[in-house]
């Protein structure tokens, strides 16, 4: 027989003014299982908690009901009081007689009192069915996986590794560096991107706690927070990185030319290549799609010139596995393809380029040695028109959101143009200038004055050819007229868009993504770094467009989160999770289907005691289970129980009024 103690709180006047507390206590005492009931001014105060502790010992109570404020407020406080008295904290139930009665029925004390009695009765009934629960402790593998080796991934990996936690950094392309490695200078200080990034890249390669796995992709993630297992596919590079010295003889002699991705296809690279001179690791890979040796078995020059014999045409993709405890996703962004802007003649006119192409041209190590040229005739342009918001803030043709960085990088481009071509003139068509950030507005102002750029507020409606010039027609909304600008070169500030394969990645990792393909954070304000899946964190543009300082901040925040997660040897977890009874489970696996966390897997158990024959049942991984109860409600054979919200507990509440 259960022995329940009930403690009704006055909450000063908050409850007592509108609910007749002594009457509630009297009424509660009439319940058979209630062996002790009392009232106090502030139950949450130390003396109040003391009363609970004393009564537990004195009256040999088996469960406790506190009738007070919302359990969302003080459940933890009272649970602690129970533990202090040596009682399992989960034998507590809270009757919410403040938010649900005294505060909302202030005009009818009788009704409020009667409702408070009912709420107490319900809590008592539920507490009778409460069971002792114990916090789940989950062991932790203290190694982090960082997906993506752009500035976000680099920063996160370095910060985690500096805390002496091993990091596995997986990068898809042959070198880390990401988009930032393609940039010339960075706003608002005009630091050279290479100068600030490459030291960090080198740090990554030489860090004792970082395992860099380039030219690889994550293909599978299993397990749960603290205990993930990841499968990584190492793409065949056809070059033995262990023996290769990076001398470069192979790619200097390679006869096959392929458009160079690093330079946005403006120039050519070889079929065996390092993406750029400062690449980390600085080892070449063979592009299997273009290498004639791999395609047709003819050539083999690179193998001949390699003194170390590092070229291996028979190399295969390799799957490697790592055990990790947390994941930082930093897959960056894609540049949006401006093809829908047919009125600009995108794809028809060669002298319309995207901002990243412009960035490569003005870059000192770029394909044109730092001088912007017209792709059509190679001439240096004099009049350059920059069009902002190409794809951004355009519901009809592009994406609804603001890409956040284009205002700033376009400003930077006008400066770079001015530096490289002194007699040039830049025109910028813009919707707004969004320069919120430290030193950003000043940067824009200064650039406008220094470069003498003409800013035209309005959208471009058409671009057409006139001789070898491009005529850019748009609106100048400030004078309310249509204007036409004769341009040698047009640069489109294309939008930042989510990586194309983010949805696939999200499904593989078991996290969610938004309608654009950006990965979703757990809470837009208070948990912007976490995902809804414990142990997976987001850094950089894969979550939303952001600039470099913001990306670095988020990456460091990820590192802090990972370090926090790994602070102990085990992790504690709420015990309100589901369990499945093997005898009752019929093995239909509907629960496996509805579980949003993939916490349910199948298991083989003997069909009867001692039998060798097996049958399939479902099994819950309590480390992953978040305790939503979806599986409980769909389980027809009621084989699943959710601790803290069991059927008996809820039915007791229902029938107890």
């Amino acid at each position, binding site marked *: 027989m259960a022995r329940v103690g009930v403690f009704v709180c006055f909450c000063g006047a908050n409850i007592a003014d509108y609910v007749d507390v002594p009457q509630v206590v009297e009424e509660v005492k009439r319940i058979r299982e209630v062996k002790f009931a009392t009232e106090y001014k502030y139950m949450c105060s130390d003396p109040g908690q003391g009363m609970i502790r004393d009564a537990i010992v004195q009256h040999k109570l088996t469960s406790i009901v506190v009738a007070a404020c919302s359990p969302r407020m003080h459940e933890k406080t009272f649970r602690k009081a129970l533990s202090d008295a040596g009682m399992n904290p989960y034998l507590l139930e809270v009757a919410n007689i403040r938010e649900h009665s005294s505060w909302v*029925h202030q005009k*009818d004390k009788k009704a409020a009192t009667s409702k408070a009695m009912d*709420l107490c009765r319900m809590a008592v009934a539920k507490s009778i069915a409460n069971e002792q629960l114990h916090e789940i402790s989950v062991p932790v593998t203290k190694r982090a996986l960082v997906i993506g080796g752009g500035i976000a991934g680099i920063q996160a990996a370095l910060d985690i590794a500096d805390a002496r936690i091993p990091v596995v950094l997986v990068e898809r392309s042959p070198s880390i560096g990401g988009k930032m490695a393609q940039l010339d200078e960075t706003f608002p200080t005009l630091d050279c991107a290479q100068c600030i990034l490459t030291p960090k890249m080198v740090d990554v390669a030489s860090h004792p706690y970082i395992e860099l796995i380039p030219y690889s992709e994550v293909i599978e993630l299993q397990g749960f927070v603290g205990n993930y297992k990841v499968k990584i596919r190492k793409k065949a590079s056809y070059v033995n990185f262990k023996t290769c010295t990076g001398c470069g003889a192979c790619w200097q002699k390679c006869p096959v030319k392929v458009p160079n991705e690093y330079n946005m296809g403006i120039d050519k690279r070889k079929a065996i290549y390092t993406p750029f001179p400062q690449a980390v690791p600085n080892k070449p890979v063979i592009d299997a799609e273009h290498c004639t040796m791999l395609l047709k078995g003819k050539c083999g020059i690179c193998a001949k010139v390699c003194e170390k014999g590092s070229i291996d045409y028979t190399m295969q993709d390799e799957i490697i596995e790592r055990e990790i405890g947390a994941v930082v996703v930093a897959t960056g962004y894609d540049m949006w393809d401006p093809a829908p802007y047919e009125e600009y003649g995108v794809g028809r006119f060669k002298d319309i380029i995207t901002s990243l192409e412009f960035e490569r041209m003005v870059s000192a190590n770029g394909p044109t040695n730092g001088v912007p040229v017209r792709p059509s005739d190679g001439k240096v342009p004099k009049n350059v028109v920059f069009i902002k918001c190409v794809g951004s803030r355009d519901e009809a043709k592009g994406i609804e959101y603001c890409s956040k960085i284009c205002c700033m990088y376009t400003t930077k481009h006008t400066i770079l143009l001015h530096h490289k071509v002194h007699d040039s003139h830049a025109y910028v068509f813009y919707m707004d200038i969004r320069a919120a950030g430290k030193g950003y507005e000043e940067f824009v102002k200064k650039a406008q004055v220094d470069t003498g750029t003409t800013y035209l507020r309005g959208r471009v409606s058409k671009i057409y050819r006139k001789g070898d010039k491009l005529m850019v027609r748009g609106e100048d909304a400030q004078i309310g007229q249509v204007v036409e600008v004769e341009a040698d070169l047009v640069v489109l500030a294309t939008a930042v868009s989510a990586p194309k394969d983010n949805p696939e990645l999200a499904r593989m990792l078991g996290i969610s993504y938004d309608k654009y393909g950006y990965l979703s954070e757990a809470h837009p304000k208070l948990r912007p770094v976490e995902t809804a899946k414990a142990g997976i964190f987001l850094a950089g543009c894969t979550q939303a467009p952001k600039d470099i300082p913001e990306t670095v901040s988020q990456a460091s925040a990820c590192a802090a989160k990972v370090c926090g997660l790994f602070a102990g040897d085990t992790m504690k977890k709420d015990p309100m999770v589901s369990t499945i009874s093997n005898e009752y489970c019929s093995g239909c696996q509907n629960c496996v289907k509805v579980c949003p966390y993939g916490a349910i897997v199948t298991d083989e158990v003997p069909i009867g005691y001692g039998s060798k024959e097996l049958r399939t049942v479902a099994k819950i991984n309590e480390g992953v289970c978040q305790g939503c109860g*979806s599986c409980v409600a769909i389980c027809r054979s009621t084989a699943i129980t959710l601790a803290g919200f069991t059927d008996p507990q*809820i039915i007791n509440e*229902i*029938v107890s009024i």
Partner: protein
Amino acid sequence: METEVKDQLVSIEKPQLIAPPNWEPVIMGILCNWCSYAGSDLTGTSRIQYPPNIRIIRVPCSSRVDPWFLIKSLQTTADGVLVSGCHPGDCHYISGNYYARRRFLVTKKLLNFVGFHEDRIQFSWVSAAEGPKFAKVVNKVTEDIKKLGPLHLYKKENFEK
């Protein structure tokens, strides 16, 4: 079979029971922890007043609500039930309320089919920020059920309190 149904329908008719004086309905409110329960707490902290007929049960998610909680409530103590969860897309557990929504519709229609008035089984989405909405919902449900009177269906053999 078809003819049988029709025949029986004509023959059976039972008098409606009349509500006793001072009768107050009991409404079982099953609320998800993250949105609606938090919303109902906000109604409290904002001191928005609503009728005292609702008795609130906390569950982690609307998807935890098994249809037979509703059946059980109506058979035993309640004259009506209200289940409330997070708005579509806001589920703390990603997709729970979508599964729940399907079950609720079928359950409501089935209970209505076997003789319960539709207003006795009601659902709402109330977010943690919608304190006033929660009060409005309770007002409406209480009003609806007061109009319908006490529920007697399948309560004949009820346990004695």
